[in-house]
């Protein structure tokens, strides 16, 4: 099954945020959306999830317009991982992950023992099974993000849409989340994620889309698209892409912003 967008314009009534967006995301692929602040990454995600109507073009899930599909059915195909967990109430990690089972329940039903087991398995798959009964506000930011990914896994959706999953995380937790995303891709998940760090795209993305000023600046395979020229145009600052030797002997590419000369 595929999540696709053709000639998509997205935004709010009277305010176009972006236009001319095309994509197709298949199982086992990671697509990364890059763009400066205000490029419309979150609005794009909301449009792809069918939460707001597109201003032009269309979004399809398995060939059907996402706006024409009942919400529960969309939820079984597309899972949304928000930037951060926000709730007024102190749910446990297991409570949060169980909410991922909602689309599989009848209107008046509550999760069964089986649903609870599945939720527990999702937590264990991400290595945080021992935190299941801990209130969400008492665990670290990285563990909270892992819980949101576990909730997405509990939906059994084929596609994961992750809106800046590494925002607000420290360096170590960012790396932890990226490894988990790479692992999910290996199990056949289709993943769309947005980030402010081009290095994260270099590390795990098969393809990238660069959004700037309401239009697609560049799109294509990561290795060919994430070059110094495109990145400099995207962020409006000179950026180099360097090849470095990492500690394990492999060679990797990384982005470095050039430093402006000091003012006199």
């Amino acid at each position, binding site marked *: 099954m595929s999540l696709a967008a053709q000639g998509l314009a997205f935004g709010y009534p009277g305010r176009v945020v972006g236009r001319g967006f095309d994509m197709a995301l298949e199982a086992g692929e990671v697509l990364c959306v890059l763009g400066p602040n205000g490029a419309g990454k979150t609005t794009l995600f909301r449009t792809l999830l069918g*939460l707001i109507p597109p201003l032009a073009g269309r979004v399809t899930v398995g060939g059907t317009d996402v706006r024409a599909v009942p919400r529960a059915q969309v939820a079984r195909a597309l899972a949304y991982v928000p930037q951060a967990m926000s709730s007024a109430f102190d749910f*446990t990690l297991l409570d949060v992950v169980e909410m991922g089972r909602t689309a599989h329940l009848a209107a008046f039903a509550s999760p069964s023992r089986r649903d609870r087991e599945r939720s527990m398995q999702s937590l264990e798959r991400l290595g945080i099974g021992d935190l299941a009964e801990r209130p969400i506000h008492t665990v670290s930011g990285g563990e909270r993000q892992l819980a949101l990914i576990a909730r997405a896994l509990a939906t059994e959706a084929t596609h994961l849409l992750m809106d800046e999953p590494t925002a607000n995380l420290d360096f170590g937790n960012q790396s932890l989340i990226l490894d988990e995303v790479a692992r999910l891709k290996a199990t056949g998940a289709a993943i769309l994620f947005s980030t402010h760090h081009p290095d994260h795209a270099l590390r795990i993305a098969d393809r990238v889309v660069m959004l700037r000023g309401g239009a697609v600046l560049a799109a294509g395979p990561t290795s060919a698209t994430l070059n110094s020229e495109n990145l400099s145009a995207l962020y409006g600052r000179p950026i180099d892409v360097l090849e470095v030797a990492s500690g394990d002997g492999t060679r990797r590419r990384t982005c470095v912003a050039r430093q402006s000369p000091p003012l006199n």
Partner: protein
Amino acid sequence: MLIPTSRLPVALAAGLVTLAVLAAASLAVGSFPVAPRELASVLWAAMSGGPSGVGDNARAIILEIRGPRIVAALAVGAALGAAGAAYQNVFRNPLVSPDILGVSSGCALGAVVGILAGLPAAAMQGLAFAGGLAAAGLVLAIGSLVRGHDRVLTLVLTGVVVGSLFSAGVGFAKAIADPYNQLPSITYWLLGSFGGVLPRDVTAAVPLMIVAILPLALLRWRVNVLALPDDEARALGVDAARTRFVVIGAATLATSAAVAMAGVIGWVGLLVPHAARLLAGPSFARVLPLSALLGAIFLLVVDTLCRTIVSGELPPGVVTAIVGTPVFIALLAASSRRAA
């Protein structure tokens, strides 16, 4: 969390037993005390239809005065507790109470109009009920016309505005009311009371409350998911706008029925869901039954105190405020200790 999920049925059963014992005790105490043995034979006779062998006075006090009053206190407590829990969930704010949409002010305006017009009690209660529904309906209608970015905040602010408009109407009614006849009964009603509850009030209000709480119980899991931001709840497969509409409608119906029967009794709907969450965690499927049970017990105890600690009667709204303030502060302290 003090009560694990597996123990919740046991905890609820224990709560029901406590409630039954307290209700029996409440039937026995008051300005005309009834001995436990007399109480038992009156209740047995009422259920079996046989003669009780107890004086008519005791019988009338138990079955016609204290009985309806106790059932009313239990029903109002359960309705306000359940409605408060539902509102706090769908507005994602633990400081919300059942009158957030101006329901209490709407009911109050309906009631004082009834009092000013010199209508009989039943018509006055009908007006109160209609006023509560009208206020909430007005808030929901305005909220859906004003398409703000944050729908929940729009509803809360609209509720505040409509509530103060209706309160201004109540203030005007008090200003023009006859200070010897009408003003005392308006003031009395605004502080709430179970003193004047008749059996027919109970039979009119209780079915409405059951009809109102039923959808909350059926939709408990979806209401639970609505504690998340709208985007997340919708992405998880919940039709957030429609579910919230049903839940608000049901909780408003329960609140209006409660206020129309017993007047404005504050604090129950705010306080009780906090206590339930402290006992069983935030999951709505656990909070809803516990809130209804704790609300019933709380108002039963409050009303029994109201009619026994002084020779006249204290308004229950005053007692819930006196009890509620320190308990609420203690709950806040307990929950911040837990979060730390």
